[in-house]
């Protein structure tokens, strides 16, 4: 089936098998390997991308379901400068091995778009869909709180 979707502001079209998962479309068809696969069982959040600004686990969605949508991956989050969440992760050492980081950053961007000034508890609850095997949660939470202070957080680009 032919799908046509906007990924990081660029219109991408491709013929895909209906069973192709969105994460494989992003990584294998478009070569956007910043989106990681961790568990492949909908638990870890490493594969989180934004669809219309909302965080979604791309291992639990078919590419055909994303037809016509606007997707932002970690590669598309920064503009001229890093996105505030990325900048805050850098400044606060919000990563160890970095495997969970793309998903954490995307989940945090979605969280801050919904709740621009969350409490620490709200950040922890807002990241419950993302696991860090290095268990570096403390600095991740610190980074997200710092990003909220850097606001304004621009809403991820959505055309419609």
């Amino acid at each position, binding site marked *: 089936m032919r799908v046509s979707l906007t990924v990081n502001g660029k219109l991408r079209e491709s013929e895909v098998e209906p069973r192709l*998962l969105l994460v494989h479309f992003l990584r294998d068809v478009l070569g956007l390997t910043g989106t990681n696969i961790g568990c492949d069982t*909908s638990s870890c959040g490493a594969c989180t991308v934004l669809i219309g600004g909302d965080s979604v*686990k791309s291992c639990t*969605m078919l590419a055909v*379901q994303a037809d016509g949508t606007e997707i932002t991956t970690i590669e598309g989050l920064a503009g001229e400068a890093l996105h505030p969440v990325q900048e805050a992760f850098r400044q606060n050492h919000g990563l160890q091995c970095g495997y969970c980081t793309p998903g954490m950053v995307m*989940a945090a961007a*979605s969280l801050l778009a919904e709740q621009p000034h969350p409490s620490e508890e709200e950040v922890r609850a807002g990241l419950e869909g993302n696991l860090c095997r290095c268990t570096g949660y403390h600095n991740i939470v610190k980074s997200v709180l710092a990003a909220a202070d850097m606001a304004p957080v621009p809403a991820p680009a959505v055309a419609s």
Partner: protein
Amino acid sequence: MIPSSFEYRRASSLAEAITMLGEGGDDAKLLAGGHSLLPLMKLRLASPTVLVDIGRLRELSYVRDGGDHLAVGALTRHADVHNSDVVGREVPLLAHVAGQIGDPQVRHRGTIGGSIAHGDPASDLPAVCLALRATLLLAGPSGERQVPAIEFFTGFLETALARDEVLTEIRFPKLGGARWSFQKFNVRAQDWAIVGVAAVRNGSAGVALVNMADRPVLATGVEAALAAGASPEEAAAHASDGLEPPSDVRASGEYRRHLATVLVRRALEEAGA
């Protein structure tokens, strides 16, 4: 993990979805948010030959005030139910529970209709439907019918839905100030409940259980004890009357019986029963 091959059809209306289901034969399945079905397909525990995608039927995503009840469209996502002002005001138990499901990513995709139609004893929203005596609207080739939630769940992942029927709407009686409680016991934040309890005190009491049988169930023993004037503690002793709770990697049936007694007592104390 990659699902086995299937034919993908996208419905652009409810009528088309019903027709496509009919044409698809025995192994056709609806796809809503995909957050129960796709994980099963990736594990090859489900291998439908035709998927009818109803995810774009935005006309089935709504919350409407029906006077004495709230009508929620089956394609309404958990996040939208949780954030709806009118749900928060009129059926706060439902708004609360929708916000407890999985994690934010799951709530951005999963739908209320998919949660109920899946008939999973581990899901949270079926217990809310049972405790509140919700009514479900089903649409099929010969029209629409209403089924009380208490008659909907018929077995493990089995419901009253016919093969070519679509769940279109769930009607929840307004709570009108009645007190309620939802108790969910799990080990990891994003997990399903090991045992859960939804309780409401609305004149009579409604009490339903998560993960205490092969299907979502009412705690009939608790409801009967309360009707006869029992205290929360006395009523909670009947939490698993007539039930065979499952044993799995997370808990034994015996442990679930114990948990149910504790959680029902807490729920009834909180709901002021």
